[in-house]
Protein backbone atom coordinates (compact mmCIF):
# COMPACT_ATOMS: atom_id res chain seq x y z
CA UNK A 1 0.00 0.00 0.00
CA UNK A 2 1.26 3.48 -0.82
CA UNK A 3 0.37 5.29 2.36
CA UNK A 4 0.90 8.69 0.75
CA UNK A 5 -1.28 8.14 -2.36
CA UNK A 6 -4.27 10.46 -2.61
CA UNK A 7 -7.19 10.46 -5.05
CA UNK A 8 -8.74 13.83 -5.86
CA UNK A 9 -10.98 14.91 -8.75
CA UNK A 10 -8.86 14.48 -11.89
CA UNK A 11 -5.75 13.70 -9.86
CA UNK A 12 -4.26 10.35 -8.86
CA UNK A 13 -1.39 11.58 -6.71
CA UNK A 14 1.45 9.25 -5.67
CA UNK A 15 1.89 11.61 -2.75
CA UNK A 16 0.05 14.77 -1.70
CA UNK A 17 3.04 17.14 -2.14
CA UNK A 18 3.29 19.61 -5.01
CA UNK A 19 5.04 22.90 -5.73
CA UNK A 20 2.70 25.93 -5.55
CA UNK A 21 2.08 28.10 -8.58
CA UNK A 22 4.60 30.85 -9.26
CA UNK A 23 7.29 29.39 -7.02
CA UNK A 24 8.46 26.67 -9.40
CA UNK A 25 8.24 28.30 -12.83
CA UNK A 26 7.46 25.55 -15.33
CA UNK A 27 9.75 23.12 -13.54
CA UNK A 28 12.87 23.52 -15.66
CA UNK A 29 15.03 25.14 -12.97
CA UNK A 30 14.30 22.58 -10.26
CA UNK A 31 14.74 19.66 -12.69
CA UNK A 32 18.46 20.43 -12.34
CA UNK A 33 18.19 19.56 -8.65
CA UNK A 34 16.10 16.33 -8.74
CA UNK A 35 13.82 14.10 -10.83
CA UNK A 36 10.46 15.89 -11.00
CA UNK A 37 8.67 12.52 -11.20
CA UNK A 38 8.99 12.20 -7.41
CA UNK A 39 6.40 14.99 -7.00
CA UNK A 40 2.71 14.35 -6.45
CA UNK A 41 1.82 17.02 -9.00
CA UNK A 42 3.11 20.39 -10.24
CA UNK A 43 1.16 23.63 -10.17
CA UNK A 44 2.66 25.66 -13.00
CA UNK A 45 3.09 29.44 -13.14
CA UNK A 46 -0.12 31.38 -13.87
CA UNK A 47 -0.82 31.41 -17.61
CA UNK A 48 -2.66 34.23 -19.37
CA UNK A 49 -3.82 34.61 -22.97
CA UNK A 50 -1.02 36.97 -24.01
CA UNK A 51 2.56 37.11 -22.77
CA UNK A 52 2.91 39.47 -19.80
CA UNK A 53 6.03 41.26 -18.60
CA UNK A 54 4.65 41.91 -15.14
CA UNK A 55 5.60 44.66 -12.70
CA UNK A 56 8.75 46.79 -12.43
CA UNK A 57 11.44 45.74 -9.94
CA UNK A 58 12.00 45.51 -7.00
CA UNK A 59 9.41 42.76 -7.06
CA UNK A 60 10.25 41.13 -3.74
CA UNK A 61 10.77 42.37 -0.20
CA UNK A 62 11.55 40.43 2.91
CA UNK A 63 9.41 40.46 6.05
CA UNK A 64 9.77 38.65 9.40
CA UNK A 65 9.23 34.95 8.53
CA UNK A 66 7.90 35.82 5.12
CA UNK A 67 8.22 37.74 1.91
CA UNK A 68 6.17 40.07 -0.26
CA UNK A 69 6.02 39.56 -3.99
CA UNK A 70 4.59 41.66 -6.80
CA UNK A 71 5.68 39.69 -9.85
CA UNK A 72 2.59 40.74 -11.79
CA UNK A 73 1.77 37.41 -13.45
CA UNK A 74 4.76 37.45 -15.76
CA UNK A 75 4.38 34.51 -18.16
CA UNK A 76 5.03 33.69 -21.81
CA UNK A 77 1.34 33.44 -22.75
CA UNK A 78 -0.74 30.36 -23.56
CA UNK A 79 0.69 29.69 -27.03
CA UNK A 80 4.21 29.27 -25.70
CA UNK A 81 3.06 27.32 -22.63
CA UNK A 82 1.21 24.86 -24.91
CA UNK A 83 3.99 24.65 -27.48
CA UNK A 84 7.04 24.54 -25.22
CA UNK A 85 6.48 24.21 -21.49
CA UNK A 86 3.80 21.50 -21.24
CA UNK A 87 5.42 19.19 -23.86
CA UNK A 88 8.73 19.55 -21.98
CA UNK A 89 7.04 18.62 -18.69
CA UNK A 90 5.48 15.54 -20.35
CA UNK A 91 8.81 13.68 -20.02
CA UNK A 92 8.06 13.39 -16.29
CA UNK A 93 5.54 11.05 -14.71
CA UNK A 94 3.71 13.84 -12.90
CA UNK A 95 0.24 15.36 -13.39
CA UNK A 96 0.15 19.10 -14.09
CA UNK A 97 -2.30 21.50 -12.48
CA UNK A 98 -2.51 24.53 -14.75
CA UNK A 99 -2.90 27.81 -12.87
CA UNK A 100 -4.80 30.24 -15.07
CA UNK A 101 -5.38 33.98 -14.80
CA UNK A 102 -7.00 36.78 -16.75
CA UNK A 103 -8.38 40.30 -16.74
CA UNK A 104 -11.85 39.36 -18.00
CA UNK A 105 -14.13 36.32 -17.78
CA UNK A 106 -13.62 35.85 -21.52
CA UNK A 107 -9.84 35.65 -21.12
CA UNK A 108 -10.11 32.97 -18.39
CA UNK A 109 -12.56 31.00 -20.55
CA UNK A 110 -10.28 31.10 -23.58
CA UNK A 111 -7.21 30.02 -21.60
CA UNK A 112 -9.18 27.29 -19.78
CA UNK A 113 -10.63 25.88 -22.99
CA UNK A 114 -7.24 25.52 -24.61
CA UNK A 115 -4.95 24.57 -21.75
CA UNK A 116 -7.34 21.95 -20.33
CA UNK A 117 -6.93 19.93 -23.55
CA UNK A 118 -3.17 19.45 -23.07
CA UNK A 119 -2.60 15.73 -22.34
CA UNK A 120 -0.61 16.22 -19.11
CA UNK A 121 -2.92 18.87 -17.63
CA UNK A 122 -5.10 16.93 -15.20
CA UNK A 123 -6.79 19.86 -13.49
CA UNK A 124 -7.09 23.64 -13.62
CA UNK A 125 -6.45 26.01 -10.75
CA UNK A 126 -8.31 29.30 -11.18
CA UNK A 127 -6.32 32.18 -9.77
CA UNK A 128 -9.15 34.53 -8.82
CA UNK A 129 -6.94 37.08 -7.06
CA UNK A 130 -6.52 39.01 -10.33
CA UNK A 131 -8.15 42.40 -10.85
CA UNK A 132 -11.22 42.34 -13.10
CA UNK A 133 -10.66 45.17 -15.57
CA UNK A 134 -14.34 45.24 -16.58
CA UNK A 135 -15.42 45.66 -12.95
CA UNK A 136 -13.19 48.58 -12.00
CA UNK A 137 -10.19 46.40 -11.16
CA UNK A 138 -11.74 44.73 -8.12
CA UNK A 139 -10.31 41.23 -7.79
CA UNK A 140 -12.58 38.40 -9.00
CA UNK A 141 -11.89 36.66 -5.72
CA UNK A 142 -13.34 39.30 -3.39
CA UNK A 143 -17.04 39.22 -4.35
CA UNK A 144 -18.76 35.79 -4.07
CA UNK A 145 -21.15 36.35 -7.01
CA UNK A 146 -18.31 37.42 -9.31
CA UNK A 147 -16.17 34.45 -8.30
CA UNK A 148 -19.15 32.12 -8.81
CA UNK A 149 -19.89 33.50 -12.26
CA UNK A 150 -16.26 33.00 -13.26
CA UNK A 151 -16.24 29.45 -11.88
CA UNK A 152 -19.40 28.57 -13.80
CA UNK A 153 -18.04 29.99 -17.06
CA UNK A 154 -14.75 28.10 -16.75
CA UNK A 155 -16.44 24.85 -15.64
CA UNK A 156 -18.53 24.93 -18.79
CA UNK A 157 -15.54 24.85 -21.12
CA UNK A 158 -12.89 22.95 -19.16
CA UNK A 159 -12.00 19.41 -20.23
CA UNK A 160 -10.62 18.65 -16.74
CA UNK A 161 -11.76 19.27 -13.13
CA UNK A 162 -11.58 22.87 -11.92
CA UNK A 163 -10.08 23.90 -8.58
CA UNK A 164 -10.58 27.49 -7.47
CA UNK A 165 -7.76 29.19 -5.56
CA UNK A 166 -9.20 31.27 -2.74
CA UNK A 167 -7.82 34.68 -1.88
CA UNK A 168 -7.47 35.31 1.87
CA UNK A 169 -8.12 39.03 1.30
CA UNK A 170 -11.84 38.72 2.07
CA UNK A 171 -13.97 39.27 5.15
CA UNK A 172 -15.87 36.00 4.88
CA UNK A 173 -13.92 33.13 3.36
CA UNK A 174 -16.69 30.61 4.10
CA UNK A 175 -19.28 32.56 2.09
CA UNK A 176 -16.81 32.69 -0.79
CA UNK A 177 -16.13 28.95 -0.61
CA UNK A 178 -19.85 28.13 -0.54
CA UNK A 179 -20.59 30.32 -3.55
CA UNK A 180 -17.81 28.62 -5.51
CA UNK A 181 -19.00 25.17 -4.47
CA UNK A 182 -22.52 25.97 -5.67
CA UNK A 183 -21.09 27.22 -8.96
CA UNK A 184 -19.79 23.71 -9.62
CA UNK A 185 -16.10 23.79 -8.70
CA UNK A 186 -14.46 20.39 -8.21
CA UNK A 187 -12.11 21.50 -5.46
CA UNK A 188 -10.50 24.42 -3.66
CA UNK A 189 -6.90 25.44 -3.25
CA UNK A 190 -6.01 27.86 -0.47
CA UNK A 191 -4.57 30.24 0.39
CA UNK A 192 -3.16 32.72 -2.07
CA UNK A 193 -0.99 35.53 -0.68
CA UNK A 194 -2.16 38.26 1.71
CA UNK A 195 -1.93 41.85 0.53
CA UNK A 196 0.79 43.77 2.34
CA UNK A 197 3.55 46.34 1.99
CA UNK A 198 6.91 47.51 3.36
CA UNK A 199 8.53 50.93 3.46
CA UNK A 200 12.24 51.74 3.30
CA UNK A 201 13.19 53.53 6.51
CA UNK A 202 15.94 55.56 4.84
CA UNK A 203 13.98 56.81 1.82
CA UNK A 204 10.38 56.71 3.18
CA UNK A 205 9.42 55.02 -0.11
CA UNK A 206 7.67 51.65 -0.50
CA UNK A 207 10.25 48.90 -1.14
CA UNK A 208 8.18 47.24 -3.87
CA UNK A 209 7.96 49.21 -7.11
CA UNK A 210 4.32 48.11 -7.23
CA UNK A 211 3.87 49.58 -3.70
CA UNK A 212 1.90 46.55 -2.43
CA UNK A 213 2.53 42.84 -2.81
CA UNK A 214 1.42 39.42 -1.64
CA UNK A 215 2.71 38.04 1.65
CA UNK A 216 3.76 34.39 1.71
CA UNK A 217 5.91 32.05 3.77
CA UNK A 218 5.78 30.81 7.38
CA UNK A 219 4.26 34.14 8.50
CA UNK A 220 0.92 33.24 6.86
CA UNK A 221 0.71 29.63 8.05
CA UNK A 222 -1.61 30.30 11.02
CA UNK A 223 -4.00 32.22 8.76
CA UNK A 224 -4.01 29.46 6.14
CA UNK A 225 -4.69 26.85 8.83
CA UNK A 226 -7.57 28.85 10.32
CA UNK A 227 -9.17 29.38 6.92
CA UNK A 228 -8.85 25.74 5.88
CA UNK A 229 -10.26 24.69 9.26
CA UNK A 230 -13.32 26.89 8.70
CA UNK A 231 -13.87 26.15 5.01
CA UNK A 232 -13.36 22.38 5.20
CA UNK A 233 -16.19 22.15 7.72
CA UNK A 234 -18.53 24.28 5.63
CA UNK A 235 -18.16 22.71 2.18
CA UNK A 236 -17.69 19.17 0.92
CA UNK A 237 -15.06 19.97 -1.70
CA UNK A 238 -11.52 18.63 -1.30
CA UNK A 239 -8.93 21.26 -0.36
CA UNK A 240 -5.33 21.53 -1.48
CA UNK A 241 -3.78 23.58 1.32
CA UNK A 242 -0.84 25.98 1.16
CA UNK A 243 0.71 28.86 3.05
CA UNK A 244 4.10 28.66 4.73
CA UNK A 245 4.63 24.89 4.56
CA UNK A 246 8.28 23.91 5.09
CA UNK A 247 8.26 20.47 6.74
CA UNK A 248 6.44 17.14 7.05
CA UNK A 249 5.03 18.37 10.39
CA UNK A 250 3.54 21.38 8.63
CA UNK A 251 1.93 19.04 6.07
CA UNK A 252 0.27 16.98 8.80
CA UNK A 253 -0.96 20.18 10.46
CA UNK A 254 -2.62 21.25 7.19
CA UNK A 255 -4.24 17.81 6.83
CA UNK A 256 -5.53 18.00 10.43
CA UNK A 257 -7.03 21.40 9.59
CA UNK A 258 -8.92 19.88 6.66
CA UNK A 259 -6.62 19.66 3.62
CA UNK A 260 -6.47 16.55 1.40
CA UNK A 261 -3.20 17.52 -0.28
CA UNK A 262 -0.78 20.44 0.03
CA UNK A 263 1.36 22.75 -2.05
CA UNK A 264 4.70 24.31 -1.12
CA UNK A 265 5.72 27.73 -2.44
CA UNK A 266 8.12 30.14 -0.78
CA UNK A 267 10.07 27.33 0.92
CA UNK A 268 11.64 26.50 -2.48
CA UNK A 269 13.60 29.73 -2.30
CA UNK A 270 15.11 28.64 0.99
CA UNK A 271 15.69 25.01 0.04
CA UNK A 272 15.34 23.84 -3.58
CA UNK A 273 15.04 20.28 -2.24
CA UNK A 274 12.11 21.03 0.08
CA UNK A 275 9.56 18.86 -1.76
CA UNK A 276 11.64 15.65 -2.00
CA UNK A 277 12.74 16.16 1.62
CA UNK A 278 9.16 16.51 2.86
CA UNK A 279 8.09 13.44 0.84
CA UNK A 280 10.97 11.49 2.42
CA UNK A 281 10.12 12.67 5.94
CA UNK A 282 6.39 11.87 5.82
CA UNK A 283 6.39 8.04 6.25
CA UNK A 284 8.55 8.05 9.41
CA UNK A 285 6.38 10.86 10.81
CA UNK A 286 3.21 8.84 10.12
CA UNK A 287 4.85 5.91 11.96
CA UNK A 288 5.62 8.10 14.91
CA UNK A 289 2.01 9.33 14.99
CA UNK A 290 0.61 5.81 14.58
CA UNK A 291 -1.16 6.70 11.35
CA UNK A 292 -1.54 4.14 8.55
CA UNK A 293 -2.47 6.37 5.63
CA UNK A 294 -2.07 10.11 5.27
CA UNK A 295 -5.71 10.56 4.21
CA UNK A 296 -6.74 9.59 7.74
CA UNK A 297 -5.33 12.94 8.85
CA UNK A 298 -7.72 15.10 6.83
CA UNK A 299 -9.93 17.13 9.16
CA UNK A 300 -8.76 15.37 12.35
CA UNK A 301 -8.73 18.60 14.31
CA UNK A 302 -12.51 18.74 14.06
CA UNK A 303 -13.90 15.36 12.94
CA UNK A 304 -12.64 13.04 15.70
CA UNK A 305 -10.84 10.76 13.32
CA UNK A 306 -13.50 10.04 10.70
CA UNK A 307 -12.32 10.37 7.14
CA UNK A 308 -14.25 13.20 5.54
CA UNK A 309 -13.16 13.09 1.97
CA UNK A 310 -12.31 9.72 0.52
CA UNK A 311 -11.54 10.50 -3.08
CA UNK A 312 -13.27 11.19 -6.33
Amino acid sequence: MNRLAVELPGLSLKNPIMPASGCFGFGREYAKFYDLSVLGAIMIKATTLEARFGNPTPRVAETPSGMLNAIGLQNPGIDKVLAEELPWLAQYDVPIIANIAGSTVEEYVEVAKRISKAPNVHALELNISCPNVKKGGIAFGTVPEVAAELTRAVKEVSAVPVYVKLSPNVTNIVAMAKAIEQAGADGLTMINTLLGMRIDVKTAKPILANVTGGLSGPAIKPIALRMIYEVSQAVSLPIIGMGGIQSAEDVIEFFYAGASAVAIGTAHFIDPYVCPNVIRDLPPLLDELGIQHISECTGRSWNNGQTVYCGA
Partner: protein
Amino acid sequence: MKEHMTIISNRQIAKGIYELTLASSLVQRMHTPGQFVHVKVATFAPLLRRPLSLCDINHEAGECTIVYRAEGTGTTLLSQKQPGETLDVLGPLGNGFPLSALSSGQRALLVGGGIGVPPLYELAKQLVKNGVCVTIVLGFQTKDVVFYEERFASFGKTYVATADGSYGMKGFVTDVIEHHALSFDVLYACGPKPMLKALQQQFPHKELYLSLEERMGCGVGACFACVCRVPHSETAYKKVCSDGPVFRAGEVVL
Protein backbone atom coordinates in the same frame (compact mmCIF):
# COMPACT_ATOMS: atom_id res chain seq x y z
CA MET B 1 24.67 22.51 -5.60
CA LYS B 2 23.84 23.03 -1.91
CA GLU B 3 26.22 22.32 0.94
CA HIS B 4 27.10 23.30 4.46
CA MET B 5 30.43 25.06 4.07
CA THR B 6 32.83 25.55 6.96
CA ILE B 7 33.91 29.08 7.85
CA ILE B 8 37.71 29.25 7.78
CA SER B 9 37.92 32.96 8.55
CA ASN B 10 35.65 36.00 8.65
CA ARG B 11 37.46 39.25 9.28
CA GLN B 12 37.01 42.96 8.78
CA ILE B 13 39.31 44.36 6.06
CA ALA B 14 37.97 47.93 5.84
CA LYS B 15 35.20 49.86 7.59
CA GLY B 16 32.15 47.59 7.45
CA ILE B 17 33.78 45.39 4.79
CA TYR B 18 34.39 41.73 5.61
CA GLU B 19 36.35 38.94 3.97
CA LEU B 20 34.82 35.50 4.45
CA THR B 21 36.66 32.31 3.53
CA LEU B 22 34.68 29.08 3.20
CA ALA B 23 35.67 25.47 2.61
CA SER B 24 33.86 22.39 1.31
CA SER B 25 33.80 20.18 -1.77
CA LEU B 26 31.42 22.70 -3.37
CA VAL B 27 34.51 24.78 -4.21
CA GLN B 28 35.47 22.21 -6.87
CA ARG B 29 32.31 23.19 -8.79
CA MET B 30 33.22 26.88 -8.77
CA HIS B 31 35.02 28.03 -11.90
CA THR B 32 33.74 31.25 -13.43
CA PRO B 33 34.40 34.72 -12.01
CA GLY B 34 31.17 36.74 -11.70
CA GLN B 35 29.15 33.74 -10.55
CA PHE B 36 27.52 34.06 -7.15
CA VAL B 37 26.43 31.92 -4.22
CA HIS B 38 23.08 32.17 -2.46
CA VAL B 39 23.78 32.12 1.27
CA LYS B 40 21.40 31.21 4.10
CA VAL B 41 22.67 33.41 6.91
CA ALA B 42 20.52 31.96 9.72
CA THR B 43 18.09 29.07 10.19
CA PHE B 44 14.96 31.16 10.75
CA ALA B 45 15.44 34.91 10.38
CA PRO B 46 16.17 36.31 7.88
CA LEU B 47 14.13 33.90 5.78
CA LEU B 48 15.60 34.45 2.32
CA ARG B 49 19.07 33.69 1.07
CA ARG B 50 21.54 36.47 0.22
CA PRO B 51 23.31 36.61 -3.16
CA LEU B 52 27.07 37.19 -2.80
CA SER B 53 29.70 37.07 -5.54
CA LEU B 54 32.67 34.74 -5.59
CA CYS B 55 35.75 36.87 -5.03
CA ASP B 56 38.47 34.22 -5.01
CA ILE B 57 38.35 30.53 -5.88
CA ASN B 58 41.20 28.34 -4.64
CA HIS B 59 40.80 24.75 -5.84
CA GLU B 60 44.05 23.50 -4.27
CA ALA B 61 43.11 24.70 -0.80
CA GLY B 62 39.45 23.78 -1.41
CA GLU B 63 38.47 27.29 -0.33
CA CYS B 64 36.57 30.23 -1.73
CA THR B 65 36.44 33.82 -0.54
CA ILE B 66 33.58 36.30 -0.47
CA VAL B 67 33.94 39.99 0.35
CA TYR B 68 30.80 41.69 1.60
CA ARG B 69 29.59 44.89 3.21
CA ALA B 70 27.69 44.53 6.51
CA GLU B 71 24.71 46.82 6.00
CA GLY B 72 21.33 45.18 6.55
CA THR B 73 20.08 42.38 8.79
CA GLY B 74 21.55 39.51 6.82
CA THR B 75 25.03 40.77 6.16
CA THR B 76 25.34 42.13 9.73
CA LEU B 77 24.46 38.68 11.09
CA LEU B 78 26.97 37.17 8.68
CA SER B 79 29.71 39.45 10.02
CA GLN B 80 29.21 37.94 13.49
CA LYS B 81 29.85 34.34 12.35
CA GLN B 82 32.93 32.65 13.78
CA PRO B 83 35.49 30.31 12.19
CA GLY B 84 34.41 26.69 12.60
CA GLU B 85 30.70 27.48 12.17
CA THR B 86 28.99 26.31 9.01
CA LEU B 87 26.95 28.17 6.38
CA ASP B 88 24.24 26.75 4.10
CA VAL B 89 25.41 27.74 0.61
CA LEU B 90 23.60 27.22 -2.72
CA GLY B 91 25.68 27.61 -5.82
CA PRO B 92 27.62 28.47 -7.81
CA LEU B 93 24.78 30.26 -9.63
CA GLY B 94 24.43 32.42 -12.71
CA ASN B 95 26.68 33.10 -15.66
CA GLY B 96 29.89 34.94 -14.93
CA PHE B 97 32.25 37.10 -17.00
CA PRO B 98 33.18 35.58 -20.37
CA LEU B 99 36.94 35.01 -20.34
CA SER B 100 37.01 33.81 -23.92
CA ALA B 101 36.25 37.37 -25.07
CA LEU B 102 40.01 38.00 -24.91
CA SER B 103 43.10 36.12 -25.96
CA SER B 104 46.69 36.38 -24.80
CA GLY B 105 48.23 39.83 -25.30
CA GLN B 106 44.91 41.68 -25.52
CA ARG B 107 43.91 44.34 -23.02
CA ALA B 108 41.15 44.21 -20.42
CA LEU B 109 39.92 47.12 -18.32
CA LEU B 110 38.32 46.03 -15.05
CA VAL B 111 36.09 48.62 -13.38
CA GLY B 112 34.64 48.10 -9.90
CA GLY B 113 32.47 50.35 -7.78
CA GLY B 114 32.20 49.83 -4.01
CA ILE B 115 30.94 46.39 -3.11
CA GLY B 116 30.98 45.56 -6.84
CA VAL B 117 34.77 45.24 -6.64
CA PRO B 118 35.02 41.63 -5.24
CA PRO B 119 34.11 39.55 -8.34
CA LEU B 120 36.75 41.42 -10.36
CA TYR B 121 39.47 39.86 -8.22
CA GLU B 122 38.98 36.30 -9.46
CA LEU B 123 38.43 37.74 -12.95
CA ALA B 124 41.78 39.58 -12.86
CA LYS B 125 43.49 36.43 -11.61
CA GLN B 126 42.12 34.27 -14.44
CA LEU B 127 42.69 36.88 -17.17
CA VAL B 128 46.32 37.31 -16.14
CA LYS B 129 46.71 33.53 -16.18
CA ASN B 130 45.48 33.63 -19.79
CA GLY B 131 48.14 36.20 -20.66
CA VAL B 132 45.71 39.11 -20.92
CA CYS B 133 47.01 42.57 -19.93
CA VAL B 134 44.84 43.88 -17.13
CA THR B 135 44.24 47.44 -15.95
CA ILE B 136 42.05 48.01 -12.91
CA VAL B 137 39.99 51.02 -11.84
CA LEU B 138 38.34 50.91 -8.42
CA GLY B 139 35.88 53.50 -7.14
CA PHE B 140 34.87 53.91 -3.50
CA GLN B 141 32.86 56.42 -1.45
CA THR B 142 35.64 57.30 0.93
CA LYS B 143 39.09 56.25 2.20
CA ASP B 144 37.80 54.06 5.06
CA VAL B 145 36.06 51.61 2.74
CA VAL B 146 38.88 51.07 0.23
CA PHE B 147 39.98 47.43 0.04
CA TYR B 148 42.09 45.06 -2.05
CA GLU B 149 44.13 47.81 -3.74
CA GLU B 150 47.49 46.03 -3.29
CA ARG B 151 46.02 42.68 -4.21
CA PHE B 152 44.77 44.04 -7.51
CA ALA B 153 48.07 45.83 -8.07
CA SER B 154 49.78 42.43 -8.31
CA PHE B 155 47.77 41.76 -11.50
CA GLY B 156 48.15 45.09 -13.26
CA LYS B 157 48.17 48.85 -13.02
CA THR B 158 45.54 49.77 -10.44
CA TYR B 159 43.87 53.19 -10.08
CA VAL B 160 41.70 54.17 -7.13
CA ALA B 161 39.18 56.99 -6.94
CA THR B 162 37.02 58.14 -4.05
CA ALA B 163 33.87 60.21 -4.39
CA ASP B 164 34.98 62.57 -1.58
CA GLY B 165 38.62 62.73 -2.65
CA SER B 166 39.89 61.34 0.68
CA TYR B 167 42.01 58.75 -1.18
CA GLY B 168 43.34 58.44 -4.72
CA MET B 169 41.79 60.61 -7.35
CA LYS B 170 38.66 62.61 -6.42
CA GLY B 171 35.73 61.59 -8.56
CA PHE B 172 34.19 58.59 -10.22
CA VAL B 173 35.67 55.66 -12.12
CA THR B 174 34.63 57.29 -15.40
CA ASP B 175 36.75 60.35 -14.47
CA VAL B 176 39.78 58.11 -13.90
CA ILE B 177 39.33 56.41 -17.27
CA GLU B 178 39.02 59.76 -19.03
CA HIS B 179 41.84 61.42 -17.14
CA HIS B 180 44.34 58.66 -17.93
CA ALA B 181 42.84 58.01 -21.38
CA LEU B 182 42.71 54.30 -20.57
CA SER B 183 42.17 52.10 -23.61
CA PHE B 184 41.15 48.45 -23.83
CA ASP B 185 39.78 45.68 -26.03
CA VAL B 186 37.14 44.55 -23.51
CA LEU B 187 35.80 46.26 -20.39
CA TYR B 188 34.40 44.29 -17.47
CA ALA B 189 32.48 46.11 -14.73
CA CYS B 190 30.56 45.50 -11.54
CA GLY B 191 29.05 48.16 -9.31
CA PRO B 192 26.03 50.39 -8.76
CA LYS B 193 23.65 50.88 -11.70
CA PRO B 194 24.50 54.59 -12.22
CA MET B 195 28.15 53.59 -12.68
CA LEU B 196 27.26 50.88 -15.20
CA LYS B 197 25.05 53.31 -17.09
CA ALA B 198 27.81 55.93 -17.21
CA LEU B 199 30.28 53.37 -18.58
CA GLN B 200 27.80 52.27 -21.22
CA GLN B 201 27.39 55.90 -22.29
CA GLN B 202 31.12 56.55 -22.24
CA PHE B 203 31.83 53.57 -24.55
CA PRO B 204 28.76 53.04 -26.75
CA HIS B 205 30.70 51.12 -29.43
CA LYS B 206 32.99 48.95 -27.32
CA GLU B 207 32.65 45.43 -25.94
CA LEU B 208 31.50 45.82 -22.32
CA TYR B 209 30.39 43.17 -19.85
CA LEU B 210 28.39 44.46 -16.89
CA SER B 211 27.39 42.61 -13.73
CA LEU B 212 23.94 43.60 -12.43
CA GLU B 213 22.27 43.43 -9.02
CA GLU B 214 18.60 42.85 -8.37
CA ARG B 215 16.58 41.70 -5.37
CA MET B 216 16.14 37.96 -5.59
CA GLY B 217 13.83 35.24 -4.44
CA CYS B 218 14.88 31.81 -5.69
CA GLY B 219 18.23 32.73 -7.26
CA VAL B 220 17.80 29.93 -9.82
CA GLY B 221 15.38 31.39 -12.40
CA ALA B 222 12.03 30.09 -11.15
CA CYS B 223 10.27 33.02 -9.45
CA PHE B 224 10.66 35.96 -11.89
CA ALA B 225 11.71 38.32 -9.06
CA CYS B 226 14.90 39.55 -10.69
CA VAL B 227 13.97 40.32 -14.29
CA CYS B 228 15.16 43.21 -16.41
CA ARG B 229 13.87 44.41 -19.75
CA VAL B 230 15.37 43.71 -23.14
CA PRO B 231 15.62 46.72 -25.50
CA HIS B 232 12.83 47.29 -28.06
CA SER B 233 10.38 44.78 -26.61
CA GLU B 234 7.26 45.01 -24.45
CA THR B 235 7.42 41.48 -23.08
CA ALA B 236 10.99 40.18 -23.54
CA TYR B 237 13.07 39.86 -20.39
CA LYS B 238 16.23 38.41 -18.88
CA LYS B 239 16.62 37.09 -15.36
CA VAL B 240 19.57 38.52 -13.45
CA CYS B 241 20.01 35.32 -11.45
CA SER B 242 20.06 32.75 -14.24
CA ASP B 243 20.66 34.66 -17.50
CA GLY B 244 23.06 37.05 -15.74
CA PRO B 245 24.23 38.52 -13.45
CA VAL B 246 26.75 39.42 -16.20
CA PHE B 247 25.30 40.82 -19.44
CA ARG B 248 26.91 42.30 -22.51
CA ALA B 249 26.21 46.06 -22.64
CA GLY B 250 23.09 46.65 -24.72
CA GLU B 251 21.67 43.18 -24.02
CA VAL B 252 19.37 44.49 -21.28
CA VAL B 253 17.92 47.85 -20.29
CA LEU B 254 19.82 49.32 -17.34
